[in-house]
């Protein structure tokens, strides 16, 4: 059974809010000026690129179904969370 539109709308709003919160968190872990291992730099680059590609999809998918839109935003939240974790972990490591 398909979710009700109201449910999808609530999920979409929640995902967008989570995405915005994570973007704020990301600012706290600015990695400019920090020493990065090749793995860490590659991971950050990979996550940024995947988010960028997803954003490209989101910015063009005008006709996408609500359910799919929710999944795309939730996927963005997941990637943003990984990016915050990658930056945060590295920041703590360098601070030791």
């Amino acid at each position, binding site marked *: 059974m398909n979710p009700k539109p109201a449910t999808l709308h609530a999920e979409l709003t929640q995902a967008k809010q989570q995405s*915005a919160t994570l973007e704020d968190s990301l600012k706290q872990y600015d990695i400019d000026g920090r020493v990065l291992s*090749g793995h860490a730099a590659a991971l950050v680059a990979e996550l940024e690129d*995947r988010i960028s*590609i997803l954003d*490209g*999809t989101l910015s063009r998918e005008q006709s996408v179904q609500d359910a*799919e839109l929710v999944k795309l935003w939730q996927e963005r939240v997941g990637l943003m969370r990984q990016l915050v974790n990658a930056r945060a972990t590295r920041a703590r490591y360098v601070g030791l």
Partner: protein
Amino acid sequence: MRNVTVAALAACMLMPALSTAQDAPRRPGRPRVRVETSRPGVFAFTDNRGRIGVIVDARADATQDKVGARIEAITPDGPADKAGLKVGDIITRFNNTSLAGASAEDEEDSGPGMKLIELARKLEPGDTVQIEYRRGNDNRKATLVAEDLGGFGWTGRMEMPEMGDMMENVMPKMRVGPGDAFTFAFGSPWGGIEMVRLNPDLGDYFGTREGVLVVRAPEDSTLALKGGDVILSIGGRKPSSPEQAMRILRSYDTGETVTMDVLRKQKHMTVTWKVPDREDRMFKRSPRMHEEPSLFRVAPRLLRLRNLIRPSRVI
């Protein structure tokens, strides 16, 4: 043939770095490509269009549409992010074109939002954009430089039972045992390298304001970098950060020769390195480490259990 295509797609999804190396997102000059498979819901295509790195709220909002187009998300490290824009900012003018009050064909769409999308779609990488935006009660201005941020991605569900067989075959050859982790890295020779973006103080000391400083040399002895080297360019492209350096490096294929312009003890020199076989550089067994979580470090047992994959990435 279809199975080959699907297997290739699957490999791209489980090997993100490799796939991205071939596609080289954020790299200008990439040819236009369209890839399709016969399976429903699976498609991919890329373009070289310039982007400013925002997601715009395209739904109509009577109050907000009087002002401009509201930003719903900012692509990390994209042009808008670099210019300091944030979620919730409302773009009021785009290259001197006012967005406020613009109308849309569909009443459910935001006029300013659709107008901004229309204008931004004409951008090429490298184009400069002057924008005005409102944050709270403040009116602000910013200059953005459009970038190729990787083009379209493909999304959708794809069932790939073939993946299970493929990984079952691959794992024994890698001699991955219980409790082992394996590192997937496009450049395991680069794994041990440590780099930092040059700041003005470091730049004065090393005699340059550009490039990336090598703090620790990579493990691969065939790569003649040393701690204290400043990588000024890689194949003619100037890395502005460690991440950008890795983006450039992963764009090279097996057997290709990478040429780097390096500053060592304030003297220019050229370092060349032949990219090793993928088998050598893709997989590397490793004990569990204290390092940061990595997409490239995957627990094999999880892969075996995954017969249903929901990817979202460019191919």
